[in-house]
Structures are given as C-alpha cells and as structure tokens.
C-alpha cells in the first residue's frame, strides 16, 4: 500500500497522457494543486489546492505516525484503469473548459447516457475519447467513441449516473 505526495514531474507525466487523450491543456492544474497518490486496490490521484495543502501534509504525516492514512483527500484527479490513467468525474467540468474532445448531447440522449446506455449518433468525430456535456456545456461524463459507418457509437465510460447507481 502506497500513500504519498507526488512530485511535479510525476504529475506532469500523467497529465500529458490525459491531455493527449482528450486534447487538453491542463498546465494550471499542476500550478495550483498538490497531488497525492494512493495505490491500493485501485491507484488514485487526489488533488488539493496548493494554497491550503500545508495542513493536509500535516494530517498525512501525523496519521502515518499511528499507521493510518487518509481515505480521501480533496478531489479525485485521475484513477488507473489497466495501464491507463483516466480523468475522474471530479475534474469533469474543469476538463470541459480546457479540452477539445467535447460532445454535446440533447436532454433526451443525456438521460440515456446517464443510465449507462450506448448511443448511436449521426455525427462523426476524429477522436476516440470524449467528454460528454449537455446543451449548457455542463459535464455529464466520459465516453469512448467507435465509428459505425457514417455514425458514432458512444460508449459511456464514467458518468454522473454513477452517483445514482452507487446508491448514496
């Protein structure tokens, strides 16, 4: 089990992967936050505003001294699926404003998407991973895209419907 603060270089490597997948520029994310790696069942990277992270470091240090570690810090930036780092729901809206691979859906399709349904839409895109938003540019989730003739199959990967499905 690992729980530690990450170096800027480590974070930049992971951010590069995400920037490439979703066509983003996330430079100021690194400038404004500190990042913490939790490598247990699933590897997760948490972020916390640099301005206030001194006390977070104190909690980590003090809890480590009694063989504890935090369950959760700030927000989740990314989690690892296989070998790939995927951005989390917590930074979805931030990515909407900083990334190019954005797909807008109407309310009817959004409901289907949030219920985990694959969608066939009459449009083509030149990317394989997209950020799904509603008509007000509000983040709904992440999807992978597959070309089907002149259409695109949208496969929900991680979406806000999770909060309904998780039952909390």
């Amino acid at each position: 089990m690992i729980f530690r603060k990450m170096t800027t270089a480590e974070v930049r490597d992971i951010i590069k992967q995400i920037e490439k997948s979703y066509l983003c520029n996330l430079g100021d994310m690194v400038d404004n936050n500190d990042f913490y790696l939790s490598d247990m069942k699933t590897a997760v990277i948490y972020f916390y505003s640099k301005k206030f992270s001194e006390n977070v470091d104190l909690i980590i240090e003090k809890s480590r001294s009694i063989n504890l570690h935090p369950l959760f810090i700030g927000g989740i930036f990314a989690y690892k699926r296989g070998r790939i780092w995927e951005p989390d729901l917590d930074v979805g809206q931030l990515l909407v404003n900083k990334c190019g691979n954005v797909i807008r859906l109407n309310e009817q399709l959004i409901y289907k998407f949030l219920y985990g349904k694959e969608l066939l839409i009459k449009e083509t895109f030149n990317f394989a991973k997209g950020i799904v938003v509603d008509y007000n540019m509000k983040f709904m989730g992440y999807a992978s895209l597959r070309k089907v003739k002149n259409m695109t199959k949208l496969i929900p990967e991680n979406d806000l419907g999770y909060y309904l499905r998780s039952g909390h």
Partner: protein
Amino acid sequence: MKRYQDIKDLIGVLRSSELSKQLAIKFDFRDYMIERYLRMFGKDETLEFLNSCSIPLSKSIRCNDLKVECGRLVEAMRKKGFVLTKVKWIPHGYIIEKKPARPSLGATIEYLMGYYYIQGLASMIPAYLLEPAETDFILDMAAAPGGKTTQIGQLMKNRGNILAIEKSKSRARALRENLRRMGIENVVVLRSDVEVVTKLGIQFSKILLDAPCTAEGLIPIKPERRKSRSFDDILYLNKVQTRLIDIASSVLKEGGRLVYSTCSIGVEENEAVIEYAISKYNYKILNFTTFPSSKGIVEYGDVKFSDEIEKCMRFYPHKQGTEGFFICVLEKEEK
C-alpha cells in the same frame, strides 16, 4: 429543585403517570417518552407535539451555490415539475412544495450534478453557526453521510481545511461520494474511530460535533422511532456524547468554537451533555438569535440546569415545522 449533577438525576423522572400511559396508548409511543415530554412541555404542548409527529414534514433541499446559482436551480427544477419555495431564515434552504411522479428528488440530473443536497431544515443550521472561514482548520467528528460536511465545504468555498472522521466503512463511502457529487475539495477523510484525533497532536480552530443520537427528533420522518428505543439506549448515547465532548475539548484550540448538535429532543442527549461540557471545561455558550429557535431547557421536573443553557437552540415539528433538533454553540475560553 435540585441542581443537575449527572445523568442519574434524570432517571427519577421515569415513573409513568396515568396521563402518560393514556397518551402512550393513544399516540402509540412508549410511556417513558410521554412522561419526559410532559416534563418538557406540559400537557397542552405535549399534545401539540404528539399530533405534529403524525404529520409528515415537507422535504427540503440545500442549494449548492458552489455549482449553481440558486435562482437557476429553482427554474430548472420548475421545468421538471418541482415547486421550490425559499426558506427565509436559511440562506440556502428550499422547501419542496410540489413534486412530479418522476423523476424522484434523488434522481434528477441536477441532483447528480451536485446542485443540491436533500437535507432537513434544522440540520442545515449547525454549519452556519460554525461560521467557517478559509483560515479555519475544522474537525467534523462524525461526518457521514456528509450533509453538514459538504455544507461547511460550501460555506468555505472550497478553501481552508476540514478533517472529517468516520468509522464505518459503508458510511465513509457514502461520505466520499457525497463530497464528490457536491464538488467539495477541501476535506480530508480519515476512516477511523474518532478517538484517533487525540493521537494526531493537531489542534483545530473549530469543531462540529453532530453527535450520534437516538434520533428522537425524527419521529415525523421515521414513525418506527416511537417504539424502537428504550431509556437505556438514551443513557448509553449520553455516555457516548459526553465522551465525544471530552475528545473535542482535548483538540480544540483556546478561543475555538465547538458546535454540538443532535437530531434528538431529550434533555439527556442535549442539555445534560452541555451541562457536562461547561462544568468540566472552560466553555461559554454563545447566543444566536438568527434562527427562530426555542430556548434550551433549564428546568426539567425537579432538576435545574445552568441558566446559560437557555442560549442553546431547540427546534420542533409543532413550533418551527422542522425535524426535532438541538444545537448549542460553545466557545473555549482562553486561560
């Protein structure tokens, strides 16, 4: 009238009168509960209270202005068939006056986006009384499922620090998901017994102790509570609550603020705990008149609590139209 010394002083009130037996049968409560209400309210108000327990409370939500402008939320919900009315005395509180058959309040897109939290009106008040600021390092001692934690984070605008403690694995998971859904990013969650904070060597500027309780204030929402708890359960919870006061007192900075709250209405879980706190530690009770609360109880049967306990706040379904709730704001005086 004798001065309250400890919880044993409150056991004597349990001899059920004929009236309490009759009312217990009529309203389907346990005798001991009615006997206590008669001592708290007198006969007429006890009847008012018991009648109000049969009337379901309106659902309420807290608008999350970190994510949405509240006027826009009201409008978006109106389009879905929800009618929301602003509660004048709670900055982010709305009553659900009307709702559609579908979707349910916990299944709208706005809910999933973290635009609101379904929360009782009275339970929104402790976070305001904490007056959290970005310079604060706050301890939330019994945090899950996160209604008040997310509210404190909202009021701090995601600045400063909150340490939230929760022992139960499933409740800690619920806390985590609510923090994420509501977009709260200034919380560290430790899954542990709350005793752990005494070992961290950290002092906090403010503490919220929304204590585990018998939920006697939630009878309008959970009718089964009329019969589900014994007086022994209440005595047990009193022990837990006073222990939590000890823990909070050991990690609160001098000049710091402790907000104690429960969703119970019994003096055993409230005034008796505050009396313990002010007699053992150097606390003063702060007076707030911002909310339309009833006063803390200082005379209960033949037992007398300290006069300043009157500054604590009580909420009832028959008076404020909220769940039964108790809040007291304590300030640790500098030596």
